């Protein structure tokens, strides 16, 4: 028989994200769905090769065009456009570095 612990835990708004993260890890361990040693989040490093564009339409066209040219050289790439603050980054991401693995 288990001895009663002091009190049941009460979760506040501030603590909720961490409590949920820990609960997901514990559930994965309990159910054997993810190795215990797996990191909580695993996102591969990636970079956009390209330039900064002035508008989104132009950025998309450039990303498609440069990706098509690079692909002719046999390098696996995907067009990419990213807005950070006021800058629109466009170009390509090397496929091996596309962040497809997201283990929570």
């Amino acid at each position: 028989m288990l001895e009663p612990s002091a009190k049941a835990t009460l979760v506040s708004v501030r603590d909720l994200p961490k409590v949920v993260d820990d609960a997901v890890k514990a559930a994965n361990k309990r159910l054997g769905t993810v190795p215990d040693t797996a990191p909580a989040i695993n996102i591969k490093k990636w970079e956009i090769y390209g330039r900064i564009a002035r508008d989104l339409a132009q950025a998309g066209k450039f990303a498609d065009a440069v990706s098509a040219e690079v692909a002719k050289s046999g390098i696996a790439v995907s067009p990419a456009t990213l807005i950070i603050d006021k800058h629109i980054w466009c170009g390509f991401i090397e496929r091996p570095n596309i962040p497809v693995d997201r283990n929570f």
Partner: protein
Amino acid sequence: MSRSDPPLMCPSAQPDMEDARIFGVVAGTAEQPRLAYLKQSAVVTDEMLENLGDLEPTQVFRYAARCEESKCAQFDKGCCSLGKRIADLLPAVTESLPSCQIRPTCRWYVEIGGAACLRCPQVVTRVPQGQGELAKVALPRT
């Protein structure tokens, strides 16, 4: 209960049941799960639910929902047999009643009283196979 009373809630419900709501997180450890009760203001977001990976929501959260009464295998002679078995067979795991949002309408509390609440934190709605006493208690008697 009178006709004007709100319907009783199942404290070990599935997310697709009527009036389903999350009232706790299955915290603790892998070996010893313990429900952490949500304060009124702590609301689980869609983003949190989307980040469960291959887990079922009931493996991470506890849901309450409107009791399905005779549609549920645990309902027997007008009462929840699961709540009674939990109170009869499982040990108390907390020494005072948890601060629980659903207590006023919880079927286990209404039928059994605080004895159910003292055991409730160890309940995980979806019990993994082989999890000892909890798995045995969860099975309806035939």
